């Protein structure tokens, strides 16, 4: 068996097994509501950490300024600008595609200007 096929097989089987842990246990083991709540909270905490490391780091070091600047721009778009004269209530936020394109555009433009 060649090395590439071996890699694909190991990675595919292992990844699927990891994904199946939760669904396979579900229904057999009754999780208390508190544990369920903690699992949901844990997933959010993990996603936030993933976005922070993804935005700021590359290969164990700092990713440069262009990427986090783009991500920050996306975050501002996603927050939505507070509507004028309507008190402190935040807007709904820009549509998903605008957030993503806005982030990529800011990063791309900064790089074109020579910011790493």
């Amino acid at each position: 068996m060649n090395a590439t096929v071996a890699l694909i097989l190991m990675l595919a089987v292992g990844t699927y097994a990891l994904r199946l842990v939760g669904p396979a246990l579900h229904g057999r083991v009754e999780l208390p509501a508190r544990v369920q709540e903690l699992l949901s909270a844990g997933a959010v905490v993990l996603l936030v950490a993933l976005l922070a490391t993804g935005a700021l780091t590359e290969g164990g070091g700092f990713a440069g300024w262009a990427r986090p600047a783009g991500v920050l721009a996306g975050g501002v778009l996603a927050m939505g600008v507070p509507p004028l004269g309507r008190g402190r209530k935040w807007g709904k936020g820009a549509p998903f595609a605008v957030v993503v394109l806005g982030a990529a555009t800011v990063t791309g433009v900064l790089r074109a200007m020579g910011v790493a």
Partner: protein
Amino acid sequence: MGVSFGAIAVAGGLPVWVPVVMSVVVYAGSAQFSAVGVLLAGGGPLAAAATGLLLNTRNAAFGLAVADLLGPGRATRLLGAHLVTDETVAFALAQPDPARRRAAFWISGIGLFAAWNIGVSAGAFAGSALGDTADYGLDAAFPAVLVALVLPALRENARLRGPAALGVVLALAATPFAPAGVPVLLAPAGLGLYGYGRKGAAG
């Protein structure tokens, strides 16, 4: 991102079928990138698979978090498990009630699976003609997706903010020392700050 994976793999000297087949059966972006990276650097299949699996251990936690959305049937559970990714979990948990969480999981899961694989094929066939996708700022797209998805949960549930902030600090502090994929696994330790059991649902 799918396009860049296909392009990078082929530009590195792998046959076109490798990124295409891998994306269907593994279906985990960051793990695929790093596994192919290790393979192209001459690391051997075992090291490459281990690196990818380390990155994917978070899917076990995600699978537990969304298990109740995958339906009671065995077939939907087996199929749904393959669609568990950072994005589908984030999409699902951004919804306010179980019915909408389930719909968001399946719609985003099937849509992203199609988009990812079409993108990889396009990238693999186009090869390196696209140039460096970092020039277009595409590396900012994935974190931005996650920002948009976790914001509603963080805004609605103030009790998540402390644990999330601590999780970020732990993950960033570990990044220079720990192998790829491990730093984010430290983040759930931030839950120590989570005062659960009071009013309001998490996520």
